């Protein structure tokens, strides 16, 4: 209260218009309008014939291809994409969970060991995730050919790096007091991990894993563009044939999958806090 009244009592310093916020706003608005005016709207932004293409796209969105044979193709390629994402996430969890625990330094007894463990494994995780999944995909397609294995490895490796990094951070951010209490009742660092760190970190870890699974579905769809099958490959083929109705059917499949996963993750999180 005291601070409010004293602030009111103080006379407000007066600025002229040219020093104030209003002047700055005016300059910015003029600059934006001027830059917009300098754009050639007819030819630079949309190439000739582009407008009709956009029209076709919008029309196609409203009239997607719904023939039985194409829907079957859509279900199959959506299933393939989901399978890649699930297999890729399993690999990512198998990499990310153990490396994440080690990178958190939670199992190290001495300060030096913790520093070495955290440093070494965080570096490993950083290496795994610094290469994008599409680049991994190219590398594995070169090495393994157009096989599902290439897609799964390309997804699993960078995602393992990302999951591990986030898991390590979540495990480190757990409140310290309950852990100290566990240690004082004779628990080793392993048991503290089992009965303290992991239970406290689990809701956040789970929620982030679900988000990553969603990302994995999108990435698995994109993988198709490299040629390894799934929704992405079909989208690319349909785009090549300028069959926009088919493209939209496939995109709707992708949206449906993502929405389902989102609902599933919400359900799991609710049942965990109950």
């Amino acid at each position: 209260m005291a601070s409010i009244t004293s602030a009111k009592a103080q006379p407000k310093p007066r600025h002229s218009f040219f020093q104030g916020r209003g002047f700055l706003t005016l300059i910015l608005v003029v600059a934006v309008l001027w830059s917009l005016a300098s754009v050639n709207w007819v030819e630079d932004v949309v190439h000739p014939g582009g407008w009709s293409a956009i029209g076709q796209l919008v029309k196609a969105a409203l009239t997607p291809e719904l023939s039985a044979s194409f829907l079957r193709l859509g279900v199959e390629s959506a299933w393939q994409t989901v399978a890649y994402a699930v297999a890729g996430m399993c690999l990512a969890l198998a990499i990310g969970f153990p490396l994440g625990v080690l990178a958190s330094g939670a199992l190290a007894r001495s300060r030096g060991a913790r520093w070495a463990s955290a440093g070494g494994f965080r570096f490993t995780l950083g290496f795994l995730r610094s290469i994008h999944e599409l680049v991994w995909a190219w590398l594995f397609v070169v090495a393994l050919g157009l096989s599902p294995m290439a897609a799964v490895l390309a997804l699993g490796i960078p995602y393992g790096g990302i999951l591990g990094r986030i898991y390590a951070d979540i495990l480190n951010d757990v409140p310290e007091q309950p852990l100290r209490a566990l240690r004082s009742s004779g628990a080793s660092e392993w048991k503290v991990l089992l009965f303290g760190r992991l239970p406290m970190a689990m809701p956040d870890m789970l929620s982030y894993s679900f988000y990553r699974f969603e990302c994995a579905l999108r990435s698995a769809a994109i993988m198709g563009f490299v040629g390894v099958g799934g929704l992405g490959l079909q989208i690319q083929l349909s785009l090549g044939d300028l069959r926009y109705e088919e493209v939209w059917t496939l995109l709707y499949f992708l949206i449906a999958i993502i929405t389902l996963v989102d609902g599933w993750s919400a359900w799991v999180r609710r049942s965990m806090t109950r």
Partner: protein
Amino acid sequence: MTFVALTPKPLVVLQGVAKSYNGTAALSPLTLHIRDGERVALLGPSGSGKTTLLNLIGGVIKPDQGAVTLDGIDVASLHPGRELAGLVGVMHQQLDLVPHLSVMHNIMAGRLGYWSLWRSLVSLVAPQEKPMVQDALLRVGIPDKLYERTSHLSGGEQQRVALARLLAQGSRVVLADEPVASLDPARAEDLMQLLTRIVSESNKTLIASIHTTHLARAYFTRAIGLRQGKVQFDLPVVKLSDNILNGLYNLSEGPAKAKA
């Protein structure tokens, strides 16, 4: 020497123990014997060395000189797992429970010092020593909360779960650092009643720092007054007088200036 042999062997012995932090003495050389079944209240102003004393007995910190022995064994030589956990346990505030686990698992955590890693892992899905856990929960008076998520319990109930975990740990000495400092007077009284009942039922030894002198008089057998790391008095609680207490808490230097 024959006289010493006749009295019961002391359970907790501090022999010339001293501790300082950055050159400031937290505890001046101090010798203390505490027998099995005693309930000792540590009194004294903030910074008088109560917490340091508790941490030394609990093996959390090591003395600069002297030795702390529990049942004749040097604390420094005890294995921090089952050996130390069986002898001395720390009573925790409710904040020290794992809120995401069930009450059952929080109580089981008191057994971790005794269990192998494998058994600890198994007990997350197939609870081990469940009858013992149920018994501990019964003794703190909330037997129907076994499967409840700990975060869904009230503050008072969580405090009881923390006590049940201590029972599961089964240590002979119970240490408590201001166990009721954060509670309102009625709840503080409740908890002290429960704590002293449990401690005396299972013939444990209680050593607790406490700020409220009437609680010390009501629930303890012996009072030790600390001031600037030195023992000012060490008396049965019946001999605690207001005069002595005023001297302990008086802000001016030394007990001699105390005005009764």
